[in-house]
């Protein structure tokens, strides 16, 4: 099927098999390998991207469902010279170790803070429940999110 999707500022047109998952199209179809696959049951959240501004697990969306939409991945969140505050906060607070969950964790955080600019610790923990990390014990991820809220003018309660 023919799809047209804007990903990180570029419009891509492609023919995809209907069964192709969005994450597989991102990685293998257009080389957006910053978004990764961590499971096959939609539990880990490593593949989280923004679809029309809201976070989705890109393993639970078909590429054809994204037709006509705008996708933002970790690779499109900032230029690399200018960092997104969430990226800055994760580095400052040592919110990542191996970095495999990080793309999803960062994109989920962007969505969480857009919904709730001043989350409490409990709200942060519940808000990131769909993203698994095996390295950090979440302690510094929670700190990162709170610091990102502060950087973005919200602050955490």
């Amino acid at each position, binding site marked *: 099927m023919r799809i047209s999707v804007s990903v990180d500022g570029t419009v891509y047109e492609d023919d995809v*098999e209907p069964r192709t998952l969005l994450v597989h199209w991102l*990685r*293998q179809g257009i080389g*957006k*390998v*910053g*978004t*990764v*696959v*961590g*499971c*096959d*049951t939609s*539990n*880990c959240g*490593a593949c989280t991207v923004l679809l029309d501004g809201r976070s989705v697990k890109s393993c639970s969306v078909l590429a054809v469902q994204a037709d006509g939409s705008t996708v933002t*991945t*970790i*690779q499109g*969140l*900032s230029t*690399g010279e200018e*960092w997104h505050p969430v*990226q800055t906060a*994760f*580095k*400052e607070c*040592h919110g*990542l*170790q*191996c*970095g*495999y*969950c*990080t*793309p999803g964790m*960062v994109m989920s955080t962007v969505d969480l803070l857009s919904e709730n600019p001043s989350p409490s*610790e409990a709200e*942060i*923990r*519940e808000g*990131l*429940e*769909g*993203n*698994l*990390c*095996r*390295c*950090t*014990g*979440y*302690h*510094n*991820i*929670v700190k990162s999110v709170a*610091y990102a809220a*502060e950087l973005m003018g919200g602050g955490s309660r």
Partner: protein
Amino acid sequence: MTEVLDTGTALGRPIRRKEDAKLLHGRTNWTDNIQLPGTLHMAILRSPVAHGRITKLDVSGALSRPNVVAAYGAKELGDLNGSIPCVWPVTDDIFMPGFPALAVDKVRHVGDCVAVVLATDAKHAVDALEAIEVEYDTLPAVVDMEAAIAAGSPLVHDDGSNTCYVYNLGGGYEEAAAQADVVVKRRFINQRLIPAFMEPRAVVAAPMGMSDEITLWSATQIPHVLRVLLALVTGIPENNLRVVAPDVGGGFGGKLQCYREEILVTQLARKLGRPVKWTETRSEDMVATHHGRDQIQDIEIAAKSDGTFLGLKVTLLANMGAYLQIITPGVPLLGMFMYPGIYKMDKYSFTCTGVFTNTTPTDAYRGAGRPEATYAIERIVDELAAELGMDPMELRRKNWIAHEEFPYTTVAGLTYDTGNYEAATARALELFGYDELRAEQAQRRASGDPVQLGIGISTFTEMCGLAPSRTLGALKYVAGGWEHCTVRLLPTGKVEVVTGTSPHGQGHETAWSQIASSILGVPVEDIEVIHSDTGRAPYGMDTYGSRSLAVGGQAIKLASERLVEKARIIAAHQLECSADDLEFVEGTFRVKGDAEKAQPLGAVAFAAFTAHNLPDGVEPTLQAEATVDPEDFSYPHGTHLAAMEVDTETGKVRLRTYVAVDDVGVQVNPMIVEGQVHGGLAQGIAQALYEGAFYDEDGNPQNASLADYLIPSAADLPSFVTDRTVTPSTTHPLGTKGVGEAGAIASTPAIINGIVDALRPLGITDINMPAAPMTVWRAIQAAKAGGAA
């Protein structure tokens, strides 16, 4: 927020990580990202039965499917079907069955590899698996360890026994028991866990370049060890093999392996003359990546009525799974030395029986033997305290090695170099508010509060820094435990630190730069750490067992110091003085007493590069190397305290407060140290509360997906209270000890001790892990009914 520290002499500072920029922008190089032209994708047909004879296997149907180029069973693979190596035959009479990459005649666990298909894309390879005709004659599965070693059990391997080995250490416990006023005996079940690193395994192999070289990219912790093993298994000359571990997304021991998939991909790339790639699904990972733990621990402690420990007896059944992987038999032995923990006693008797079952092979998982040992000793000490009516911390204090008694040789034969259990404990008690919590506990007990409070203690030590090579040899481990570093000063003043360690989340690029910077006086950002590629970093023993800093750090220090000494000779020549007249401060050689005469290290590097004016006998270029075999293990320790709330009406358990005070010796980067502690805590707490890989009696995995295997999320864990005391190691020149596994080792018994402490008034003396609400609730019901917990 704390300030950003990015430059300067760097040892001991919480410098933000160099690794993070690319990881936070998705500019990573995971193995699965590698897409070489002409790649064939491999898919694997795995056994759906735990134990069975393969009565029919015909792969030809797959060959007629679109885009399929090749398909193999064991018969078609022939001599290329290499046997997976085990490098730790722990006893002379160990039974080491063969472990072919593709099963021959029999399958022995769910997930065993039966056949492979190679196609031009992954989807077609997977689709074609259904065209393979395979039939099994299902055999009775061997799952329970005690049943496995009983007479008449079905055999996992027809040509041997389900007993892999029996290992004994020490003796004389019976004498101690005869003199004891009290003996406490328990059986603890240390359940099977799945490493579940976030990046699934992936392997790419390709014939490369003009030579006969095969390059293998693998999501592995051990590129150097893997290269040697692949050469031995495949017959490919080692000098034609290059192994690269690109960015690796976690390991925790699960990627410390020579996997059958790595052998298959390598062999088929060579045979077919084109790149071959395989990436596992998570569901494959849960049955095919090695598992950890899985021991039945019978432990007995003998003591005097005043609490003085006299002796310890440990009898283990250790589940090997269906086959022996790289160090499967040795994992319980890494724990063997640690059962006495931090305590003094005179007698110790240890016996371990390794048992084959129709389950996924086990091997190292974060802590590898030491979490099991720590769990058993810290649990039995609490049980003894209850028996004696003593405060469990008082009992520990009475028996632990006092700080002035170091170095101390334990009953298990290890010599602990340093430690200060008093200091770490005092700090932990202060942070925790121990006395206040005991008062609250008494009040809740008195008032019959449905939510009871328990205090869990774990005072632990572990052995890090694997390992002195002679010790490994004495234990029949077939490799050494050294580590290598080469430091190069490039003509432009930039530095390359080439290390044999292989990080996968630990921040070596940052921490190793800090060590080199502190010696060379070169800013951290001018140092590049080169690792995990046998082409660029040829020597190394890789990353596991909290060894990278403890052993690799020594090599970086020594190589950096040697480089400075070579540079000093060149600088003296240039400055026309004696080398002894030079001092080296902040990266510059200065003539003592003459501040004007100076040469920075970068200028020496350029002089060594041009070689226009070097002293006689000094070779051009400025580099130095060091290969260090550690003098001994190192022994980090700590005191961990958990406040556990247990709802006696529902069985729900809440971890209210967790305090961890660790002593890991000198810290190179305290931020990274703290992060390692946090992650370890989460995994250890997860064993206590959430995780466990279980099989039914037919050997079917019961929870082999991330939907069923409960890795805790952020909502399942609290923030932690952590602090450190610093007692430098005296056997490691940097004073460092190792921190990668500490949290995972210490926390599991702290949690369970806390739950049991909360429920002890009900007569409960143990709770099986994971302590899910149903498990706890049932224990409470059984206790109330007067039955055993």
